[in-house]
């Protein structure tokens, strides 16, 4: 890494500052991009530690793709700075990066193995080596039979897998997936998740954008939430979840009694259950008051907030609703 220091100062937005000892795969400060007078990205900051699985969450049109394109040097920001693997010019480290764009694309007449080798060649891998690794990867992922078939002869899902393998064939240090799960069935989504975990285990930095929070919740160490071209939160998933107090679910035998005074004002009742945020004083004083008030506790559980709840709280209901309308994958996996 070269010259990370000047960019580190405002690393986290509403999250926690990244560990200064940990090198950053991506740093971006104040990225701004407008298209025809519409501001698509409005001052985005990102700090992605090396070796992390990092999720960029946001509804469609939030600015995820534009941010990634700026980081990768596909387009230049109107303002702001970005550094990728320590370089200001992303193409200088293109050989160490893998990128799967949101809009998948391969040459229809190319054979699968040639397509993988070509994607590797674009990143500096010799064609011969690319073909060898391509066959190996296809075999390993159950697509060996498709190696010599043209892309146009493959199903959409298979072609997408071929492109994913092409993204990895040159063994990049940093892999960026833009909406990688869209277009994949549940089985292949699971396989892709496993592949991402494997990559991370090998020390590869994995960044992916998604509008499906479940994927981020399962995979990510850290996330950035993008809404309306801004990043209201960037930090660890735990910190995001901790933003919402844990929820208490209480079931009592008695319906009325002195114990009710122990419940917070915003407690709501649904059938036999009471729901309310865990009081700041903790669970013990509450338990004591319930017992002394003869509530007759049948069950009591403390549920930690999910990333979805955190996202709703951070990005706002509107963004959450937008994500809910984004497509069938929303409920998947």
């Amino acid at each position: 890494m070269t010259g990370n220091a000047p960019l580190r100062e405002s690393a986290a937005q509403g999250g926690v500052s990244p560990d200064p000892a940990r090198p950053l795969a991506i740093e971006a400060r104040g990225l701004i991009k407008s298209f025809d007078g519409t501001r698509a990205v409005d001052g985005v900051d990102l700090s992605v530690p090396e070796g992390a699985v990092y999720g960029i969450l946001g509804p469609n049109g939030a600015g995820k793709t534009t941010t990634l394109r700026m980081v990768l040097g596909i387009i230049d920001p109107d303002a702001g700075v970005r550094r990728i693997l320590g370089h200001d010019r992303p193409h200088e480290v293109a050989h160490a990066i893998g990128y799967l764009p949101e809009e998948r694309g391969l040459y229809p007449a190319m054979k699968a193995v040639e397509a993988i080798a070509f994607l590797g060649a674009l990143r500096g891998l010799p064609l011969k080596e690319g073909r060898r690794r391509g066959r190996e990867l296809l075999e390993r992922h159950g697509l060996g039979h498709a190696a010599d078939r043209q892309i146009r002869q493959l199903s959409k899902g298979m072609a997408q897998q071929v492109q994913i393998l092409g993204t990895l064939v040159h063994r990049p240090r940093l892999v960026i997936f833009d909406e990688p799960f869209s277009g994949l069935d549940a089985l292949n989504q699971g396989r892709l998740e496993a592949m991402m975990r494997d990559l991370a285990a090998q020390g590869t930095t994995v960044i992916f954008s998604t509008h499906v929070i479940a994927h981020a919740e399962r995979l990510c160490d850290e996330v950035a939430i993008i809404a309306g071209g801004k990043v209201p939160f960037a930090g660890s998933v735990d910190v995001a979840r901790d933003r919402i107090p844990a929820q208490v679910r209480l079931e009592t035998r008695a319906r009325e009694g002195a114990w009710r005074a122990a419940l917070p004002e915003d407690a709501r009742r649904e059938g036999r259950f009471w729901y309310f945020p865990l009081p700041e004083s903790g669970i013990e004083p509450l338990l004591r008051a319930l017992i002394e008030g003869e509530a007759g506790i049948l069950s009591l559980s403390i549920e930690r907030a999910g990333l979805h709840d955190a996202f709703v709280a951070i990005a706002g209901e509107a963004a959450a609703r937008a994500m809910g309308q984004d497509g069938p994958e929303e409920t998947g996996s």
Partner: protein
Amino acid sequence: MSDTREPGHSGRLSTLSAAWVIARRDFVAILFSRAFFFFLLGPLFPVLVGILAGSVGQRVQQTAQSPEIGLVMAETEARRILAAREVLAARLGDAVPRMTLVHALAEGEDYEPRSALEGRAANIAAILSGTAEAPQLTGPRTRIESWRGPVAMVAAQAQAGELAPWPEVRLETTTSSSATERRGRLTTAQGAQTLLFLLTMMLAGMVLSNLVEEKGNKIIEVLAAAIPMEAVFMGKLFAMLGVSLVGIATWGATVGAVLLAGSSVLPTLTTPAVGWPMLVALGVVYFATAYLLLGSVFLAVGSLATTVREVQTLSMPVTMVQLLVFFLASYAMTQPGTAIEYFALIFPFSAPFAMLARAAQDPALLPHVPAVLAQCAWVLLLVRLGSALFRKRVMKSGPARVKKPRRSLFRRKAGAKV
């Protein structure tokens, strides 16, 4: 690709290496596609249509040409006339009209020459009647006036019976006069220029369709993320140039074989000032620069278009401008040493045509060096501009734009009565 990296591992690509990756892929993909086979056959269709039209035209012409004079006279008189015509035709060739006996008059027969002209399918354009001493020509005014002299000459010969002695003209041949040579070289220059223009226009459009196809495949973002856009553009341009040169070589070899097989149809062009081998070499160089210049403009245009229809709309003005540029270069060729010629030689889009024409007319080779270098610099500049435009215009995403309501001349005012 970089030679410094470890074998089997990826390393940073220079712009040229990246362009090579693109060029290699495009070249191989196009060369082994069915489309290329049809592309090679492409010029065959106009040639076939031309041959067909030519043979039909020739037949029509054959039927219509060679108008003859019909003889309506006594048979002995007709023989005198025909014999005299043969004698003169041997000396004067086609200047003497063809003649044929239409009707031999019997003694005392009264025959109206006009009737011999009516309803005849043959090429009888006029009727010669009377005798060699008093010939009468009947036919349309323009025709009989043009034949008046030759017919009188034939009649005079028929009267004389023998050929008068003609003095021998001594002939001394030269290879060419300076006027003939200048004119011949101008024709050669014109031919070279036209061929260059036709090839450039025909082939440069391929770059456009290639880029639009790329956008359709959505692979362009993968390319843009991995290598500089300049490399993508350069790779595409050089791949298409390579494909074009393969096409030209194939067509050239075919045409050459055809011409050698039937050497009688070999066009007789004056040797250009720099000689044929050098003109061909310069032709290849100037084709490359003209192709790259026009191709880079088409690439920039292609970057703005998303559909083939848009491509056609956007490329039309470019084609028209290129046509004007060709006319400029053609005109400049006839105006050596004028400001127009210098402008055509300097202006990047006309320079390849003007310089090739110059090579046909002027033996100096040195001016071609700076010209080629300048054109290469223009290609680089245009590629940079095109790729910058592409990055700016194409890779857009983000929130959908809210369309601002436009004022319309025909918009009904609120509350207006219907």
